[in-house]
């Protein structure tokens, strides 16, 4: 049985048998990994508290025949939190951050590709996104939408908010179509395309490029419309939407 180490974010956990859990993590160098953590549901376990969703951990894993096995866990820096608490308890203590963060974990799980296929950019994006979320200085729903747009881009589904997504005609354009890949000119516009307000398109473009001055200045109505477009875009490219997206407390 060969051992390896990596740092990772815990995406989800499922109960297994009496006292074990299967944890799904997104790791820095090994992509998404599913591993068994034995005995972690017992109150005497030293691992259990470190393997909750959102936990940023340094893991030691042993290759198993079907699933890998967690043999060591250390909590990594409690970044993003001024009080030095682990990330999971900071995010769990803020309901809006929790619901936005859960959707980020689910998206990362779905967009990371195959198990063990390195997804370094997705990993760094997730670490950065959760750090911003835990710092509590930015609107959780904007942090989520920025993360989703960038995560989709890294996965090869970069939306275009300026030039026509189909023919490249310079924008700004009026129509939004997920199947086309974003905004389209009037000639390329498929029937049934949405016609978002220009402010909304500007917000999405700002979230994708990290222009927080523009993003923070947006109003409630623009954010809602933007969130709707991001959800539609995501759903098109993932085929089946994110379960946790409907529970985001915006």
């Amino acid at each position, binding site marked *: 049985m060969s051992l390896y180490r990596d740092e990772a974010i815990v995406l*989800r956990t499922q*109960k*297994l*048998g*009496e006292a074990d859990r299967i944890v799904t993590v997104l790791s820095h160098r090994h992509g998404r990994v599913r591993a068994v953590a034995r005995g972690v549901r017992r*109150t*005497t376990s*030293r*691992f*259990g*508290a*470190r393997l*909750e*969703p*959102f936990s940023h951990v340094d893991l030691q894993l042993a290759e198993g025949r079907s699933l890998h096995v967690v043999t060591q866990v250390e*909590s990594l820096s409690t970044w993003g939190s001024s009080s*030095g*608490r*682990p990330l*999971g*308890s900071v995010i*769990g*203590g*803020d*309901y809006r951050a*929790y*619901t936005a963060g*859960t*959707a980020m*974990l*689910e998206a990362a799980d779905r967009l990371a590709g195959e198990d063990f296929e390195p997804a370094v950019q997705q990993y760094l994006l997730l670490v950065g996104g959760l750090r911003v979320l835990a710092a509590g200085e930015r609107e959780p729903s904007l942090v989520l939408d920025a993360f989703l747009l960038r995560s989709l881009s890294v996965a090869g589904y970069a939306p275009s908010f300026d030039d026509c997504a189909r023919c490249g005609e310079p924008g700004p354009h009026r129509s939004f179509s997920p199947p086309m890949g974003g905004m389209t000119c009037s000639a390329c516009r498929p029937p049934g395309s949405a016609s978002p307000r220009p402010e909304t398109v500007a917000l999405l473009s700002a979230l994708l490029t990290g222009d927080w001055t523009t993003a923070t200045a947006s109003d409630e109505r623009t954010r809602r419309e933007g969130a709707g477009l991001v959800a539609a875009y995501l759903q098109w490219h993932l085929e089946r939407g994110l*379960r*946790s997206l*409907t*529970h*985001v407390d915006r």
Partner: protein
Amino acid sequence: MYEGVVQDLIDELGRLPGIGPKGAQRIAFYLLEADPVDVKRLAHVLVEVKDKVRFCSVCGNVAEDEQCRICRDPRRDLQVLCVVEESKDVVAIERTREFRGRYHVLGGAISPIEGIGPEQLRVRELMQRLADGVVIEVILATDPNLEGEATATYLTRLLKPLGLRVTRLASGLPVGGDLEYADEVTLGRAFEGRRSVDD
């Protein structure tokens, strides 16, 4: 794969929580070799539990009547309400004999990834129970994990404006253990939940 009814039994057992394919097979073969009287008794209890047991109309706990034993007990303190995730948590707290109030069973914890939001839990029923102003303290006794924490956070935000005293169970160190062996998450929570010793 086994034939017909044996495989059906393995499949059914395998759908139970905490039982994997191997466990299901082991239980199935145990039952095949067991005394028919024992197996009939098990089958009878399974049917009976679904017929007889329902959920208390007040608190959501398992009950054999319209209301559970605790809600019917006139000696229980009506001013204190303890909110838990599941009926088994009621049993655990009752074992301590520390709590004399009543319960509210949510039916789980908020977990968006499983499709469970506040609407899927008995949160509306909780708010209706609190509307008459009899309860003055609500103790949030959700599990000390991420979902339990988030559920408590959500309920706190909902309950505080009602002017109630809202408390959360302290989560901390297992009694009988050594401090040096505690993990940093548990130890951190214990620090947050520390209390004064001079009163």
